């Protein structure tokens, strides 16, 4: 909003010098505070990031020696679209083993300990989705475990 103006539409006489004088004294007062704030913020930043109320996504790295089907920035933004489009081709068309399969994701991204992408809060899918407050139901039906982990579970 525009600052309120006087009834005559002009600055009151003597306004200008008065203002510059005030601005000079104000600057000397707020500059150290801002600097202090910046320094404090700089110090506190890592602590807040590490122990905030919301856990930061600790994205587990994929199985060593594997290469994702698309660059990471593309996958981060578009993975849901890739999966959604391909699932219709698979379910209705019977085309399996195409580039963007959920099974393919799980094979590389299953966690070392759990063998799953959703077995622990740090596992690949869950860590990011809980951070982004995305609640998806892929794993209501699809298993989050890799083929190797499922085979192991069956053998037990």
């Amino acid at each position: 909003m525009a600052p309120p103006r006087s009834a005559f539409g002009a600055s009151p006489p003597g306004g200008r010098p008065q203002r510059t004088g005030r601005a000079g004294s104000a600057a000397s007062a707020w500059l150290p505070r801002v600097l202090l704030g910046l320094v404090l913020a700089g110090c506190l930043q890592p602590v807040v990031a590490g122990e905030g109320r919301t856990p930061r996504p600790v994205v587990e790295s994929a199985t060593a020696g594997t290469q994702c089907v698309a660059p990471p920035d593309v996958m981060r933004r578009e993975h849901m679209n890739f999966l959604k489009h391909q699932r219709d081709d698979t379910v209705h068309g019977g085309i399996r083993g195409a580039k963007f399969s959920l099974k393919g994701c799980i094979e590389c991204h299953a966690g070392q300990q759990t063998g799953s992408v959703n077995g622990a809060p740090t596992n690949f899918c869950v860590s990011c989705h809980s951070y982004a407050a995305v609640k998806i139901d892929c794993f209501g039906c699809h298993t989050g475990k890799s083929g190797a982990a499922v085979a192991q579970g069956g053998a037990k």
Partner: protein
Amino acid sequence: MSRRGFLGVAAAGLAGVMLAPGIRLIEIAQAASPAATPTAGASPKVRWGMLIDTTKCASGCTDCVTACNTENGLDPKPSPTSSQWIRKVEIKEIRTGRASSVPVMCQHCAEPPCVDVCPTGASFKRADGIVLVDRHTCIGCRYCMMACPYKARSFVHEELSDQKPDVPRGKGCVESCTLCVHRIDKGDKTTACAEACTKAGHGAIVFGDLNDPASEISQRVREIQTTQLRADLKLDTGVRYHGI
């Protein structure tokens, strides 16, 4: 386009085109991805079907049911509310006392009533005649269960865990026999039930392409008398029975 936008696009383009001389991201991705060629998909020239010879099907034998449960990760010890994709029905003609044992599953109709009644399009028929439920679209209304004359479909009432990677299943969806679609799509020529029946030496279930005149199932249905269950409904089922 703003200057900043242009620079961003130019930088991204440059990074995408060249990582090091002669190496591009796309080439790395293509070289590393193992899934080189996806499967061809369902062909409209094919009509998958099954022939069940009830004269070879022993009463009390549940090899096919067990194989189905194992293959698809169904409950190995079914409760009254568990899903069943294939079940054994014992029938008896009261006057003569002639009894037969009949495995009944989704009949994969050419004119499936479950597809007609589905309000969301989740129940559908593939090009190769396999009738399926798309669980992404199923809302669990169970109209299809009401419509099916064969009681072939089940509803999943409780949350499931440890599903098979190839057979996703979950609470709130209707499901039924898929003719082991995950196997067929990969090029396998048999279903779990037919395989188990053959392996056990009964040979009561033959799976194959009804449209291919050279296939075993086509030859058998040409030679022996077969019936469709509830043929009066004119649903043109893909599963046919001999000896009932």
